[in-house]
């Protein structure tokens, strides 16, 4: 097990959210969209050059800006 940010998680790999290093506003916003500590996600892609990261949570697909993705830490194999 190692901890990496969503930016560094490899595409097509799974991870479990272990920390969201943002303010309460961001935490609440992500929480209401179904992304919270303990949730399992799959990374679909990273556009590159500080572009967005795309992940799958359950049946939703979510795109997050680079800065936001860097704040989300996941545990992975």
């Amino acid at each position, binding site marked *: 097990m190692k901890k990496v940010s969503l930016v560094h998680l490899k595409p097509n790999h799974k991870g479990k959210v272990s920390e969201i290093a943002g303010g309460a506003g961001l935490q609440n916003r992500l929480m209401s969209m179904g992304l919270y500590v303990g*949730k399992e996600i799959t990374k679909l892609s990273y556009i590159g050059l500080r572009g967005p990261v795309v992940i799958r949570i359950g049946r939703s697909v979510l*795109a997050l800006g680079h800065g936001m993705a860097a704040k989300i830490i996941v545990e992975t194999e």
Partner: protein
Amino acid sequence: MIRKIYLIGNPNVGKSVVFSRLTDVHVISSNYPGTTIEFIKGYLSLGDEKIEVVDLPGTYSLEPSSSAEEVAVSLLKEHSKDEIAVVNVIDSTNLERNLLLTLQLVEEGFPTIACLNMCDDAVHRGVHIDTKKLEEILHIPVVSTCAVTGVGIKLLIKRMKETASVSRDKLPHEERWKEIGLIIEQVQHLEHRHHRLREMLEDASVRPLTGFLMAAGVIYTSFKIVRFIGEFIINKITDPFFYGTIQPLLEKLTLHWQEKSFLFHLLIGDLVNGKIDFKQSLGILTTAPYIEFGMVLPYVISFYFVLSLLEDIGYLPRLAILLDNLLHRLGLHGYAIIPVLLGFGCNVPGILSTRVLESKRERFIASTIISIGVPCVPLQAMIIGLLGAFGGFYVGGVYLVLFCIILVLGLILNRVLPGYSPEFLLEIPPYRFPPLTILARKLYFRVKGFLIEAVPIVLIGVLVINILLYLKLFDIMTGVFAPVIHDLFGLPKDAIVALAIGFLRKDVAVGILAPLGLSAKQLFIAVTLLAVSFPCIATFIVLWKELGVKYLIKSTFIMIMISIIVGTLLNFVILR
């Protein structure tokens, strides 16, 4: 006793389609979050009564995070709970995420009915939901619907009376998600499916390499289709009609009129080589209808056809992901591409839809960029119609200049304005293929909206211009502005009339340029200036309403500066 019905749900679950079904009021719906930015009202006949139905902007929870979400939540709390019914529209293909809002609504004591929409799509994707079980767990009525075809809507209306306040403990979000997990286990059954073509295309469009290739393909094809349909309508329908039917008719009618009479001047305008020229005569019966129906309308139809198709399929949010990078440097984020694309149709809906952006700073940048660098369909149709005669090279040049203006302006605004550009966070919808009838309806309403707005202004505009020209009142203005227009921009003095009229409508303005006999270079400069200078009056009013006077003045100042700089640069440096 229900006095008001609210439709609430996550973004992009089809609330507006349900609303149209309930009330017969047409509203624009698309396959991306945030199509509805303001609440919309209509009426539902229930027995002998007429009940007001309100379609709210989408929200993920009852704690709002954007101005559109705030609208939804504050309206919901306007009436006492025993007088309303809340229809919670849910995307059946994604029950889990939708249930957070449902639980919140029930916990807050809103009399709620759950509407499991898009049930046909859920079945296609192998998602089966036990609605009876869900009803037992939540203690609220649950109805499956497919709003685009109308399935289940009658039952939804019938069961609306069963809504009542239910008591349920209020939970923090973490606990709610745990509970939702348990509910899902009981009511949802997923059939295992292999990846099919649709899912493969969905994934490919958000990966870097395949994504950009697909985007290039989609954009190129869209341009081609817009041009093909537009030209087809012009060459096969409108031109034969104007030149084959209208022209002989007008010539017969006016055979005995005096060419120099005032009435002739107003209705027919000036003859070119003794004949009516629809592009140049500038009469109420000649150029006015030809501009709107013969030049602009064909492209309005073809543009909105392609845009509506892309909207409904759900491609646009994917484009937003790919462009986030670039737009971030302009102080925006990827989602700003949607207001910009809408702005290519008409700047007004484009600027209105900047409400999906979070901060005032972003909205100011996006609105300013749209009103300066994004030409609307009427203007584009005229650019193609007039400048296209000199070759596609010039038309492409105008777009290139506008694109460069957007880039430079965005980079500067992002540097100069205090604040930062917020992060992109967007749910990406699956591809959907709604029935063609829905697409046709949407196209019909958009074209009708265009005609209602454009036709009276064009007729009045041409009338007023003709009277002013006849009385030679423009001469004062041309005298004052001659130094700028002639010495800086290299245009004939009379071109100022066109630029001034551009404030009324851009297509009328280009119509005035036509008889001036401009060279390719002059026409290039004139249409570019028309695009970047003042927006038309409708856009101006929307800018004022949306941004306030202070920002409007800033925006206007930027427009004037850019017009002068770009006009001069084009004249002396680039096109020398």
